[in-house]
C-alpha cells in the first residue's frame, strides 16, 4: 500500500484542528519550506482536537512518535523557537507544545517580527498564494466565529454600553485584568 507523502499527512492532520488549515498543494509547499521530514513527523504526533493555545506535554507527544526523549525535546523546542509551534504550560504546569491554529498564529508568526528577510519574503508569496478567496473563506467557515469586530471608542449608545460593556474596545482595554502585554506586527 502506498504511503502518503509526509507533508500531505501533515496537511491532513492540520485540517482537523478547530481552526484548521484547508489542505491543498499550496499548503504542502508552505509546510515543505518550513518543516524537515523528521520535524513533520513530530508535528504529526501533536494532538489536534484541542482548543488553541492548549499545549500537550512531552509524555503525551512521545507516546505517538518513535524518538528518544531528548531528541524529541530538541526538535519541539527548535520548532517553537522558529514560531512553528506554540509553547506554554500544560494544565499540569509542565512544559508543552501545540500546533499553531489559523488566525492565532498561522500564518502570523512568519511576520510578527517584521523582518524583511528572504524566508519572510518567500513566506509572504507562498501565504498569499495559499490564502486565496476560497481557502480564506474555508479557514474561517466555523459555525461560531472565532473573532469579532469590536466598535472603536465610545461609538455605541450609552444604553448599549451599560448592558454590553464587552462590546466596547475602550472598556475591554481598560477593565480586563491582563498580567502581560506584547506587541507584534500584523501579518
Amino acid at each position, binding site marked *: 500500500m502506498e504511503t502518503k507523502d509526509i507533508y500531505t499527512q501533515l496537511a491532513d492532520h492540520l485540517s*482537523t*484542528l*478547530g*481552526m484548521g488549515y*484547508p489542505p491543498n498543494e499550496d499548503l504542502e509547499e508552505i509546510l515543505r519550506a518550513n518543516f524537515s521530514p523528521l520535524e513533520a513527523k513530530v508535528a504529526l504526533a501533536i494532538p489536534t*482536537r484541542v*482548543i488553541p*493555545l492548549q499545549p500537550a506535554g512531552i509524555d503525551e507527544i512521545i507516546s505517538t512518535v518513535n524518538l528518544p526523549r531528548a531528541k524529541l525535546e530538541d526538535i519541539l523546542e527548535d520548532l517553537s523557537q522558529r*514560531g512553528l509551534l506554540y*509553547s*506554554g*504550560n500544560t494544565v499540569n504546569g509542565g512544559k508543552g507544545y501545540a500546533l499553531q491554529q*489559523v488566525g*492565532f498564529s498561522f*500564518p*502570523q508568526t512568519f*511576520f*510578527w*517580527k*517584521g523582518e524583511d528577510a528572504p524566508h519572510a*519574503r518567500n513566506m*509572504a*508569496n507562498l501565504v498569499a498564494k495559499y490564502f486565496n478567496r476560497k481557502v*480564506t*473563506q*474555508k*479557514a*474561517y*467557515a*466555523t*459555525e461560531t*466565529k*472565532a*473573532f*469579532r*469586530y*469590536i*466598535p*472603536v*471608542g465610545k*461609538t*455605541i*449608545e450609552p444604553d*448599549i454600553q451599560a448592558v454590553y460593556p*464587552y462590546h466596547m*474596545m475602550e472598556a*475591554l*482595554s*481598560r477593565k*480586563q485584568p*491582563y*498580567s*502581560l*502585554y*506584547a*506587541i*507584534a*506586527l*500584523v*501579518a
Partner: protein
Amino acid sequence: MIARLRGMGCAHPTEVCIKFDEVAQYVIDRKLGKQITRGEAREIIKQSEEDGLVHFVDNAIGDIKHNCNCCGCACWNVGSIKRRKIPRDALMATYFIRKTDTDECTGCGECVEACPVDAITMEGDFPMVDEDWCIGCGVCVDKCSSEAAKLKLRPDKRGQLPISNFRELHERILSEGGACK
C-alpha cells in the same frame, strides 16, 4: 507585512497586533514581538482609532487573548470585505450596524471617506449604508462631527452574544466540527 513584503504595502501602522497574558509570554519568549505596558497597549488602541483602523478580538466576552487593528488596504480580512471578495459574515462575527440620524446629519460625507470597507455612499444629501457589507466597526461614528452616525445592534443578531470565555468559544467550535469539517 505580507503586502509590504510583496511591494504592496500602505501607510497605515503595522505594529498594532496586541497579545495578552500567555500569548504575550510566548511572543516575548520567542522574540516574535516585544513586551509593552498596559498604558502603551491603550495608547496603541487609541492611535489605531485615530488612524481609522478596525479593532477585532476573540469572539469571547472574557479572557480575550488577541486584539488586532486593521486597515482595509492591506489586511486580509477587512481588505477582503472592502474588495467584496468574501461575504461579510463569512469571516468574523459582526454585532453592530451603522445607522444615520437624518435630523442631525449635515451631509458632509466624512463618514464616506472614513469607512474602511467602502460601505457608505452619498445618496443625495445623506449617506446611505450598505447593510450587507457594513461591519459595525464604528470608525465612521468616531469621525462624524455632527453625531448623526450611530451604531445599533444588528436586528438579526439580537440576543446573540459573544461566548463567555475563550475556552468555551473554542470548545464550541470543536464540537461544531471546526473550520474544515
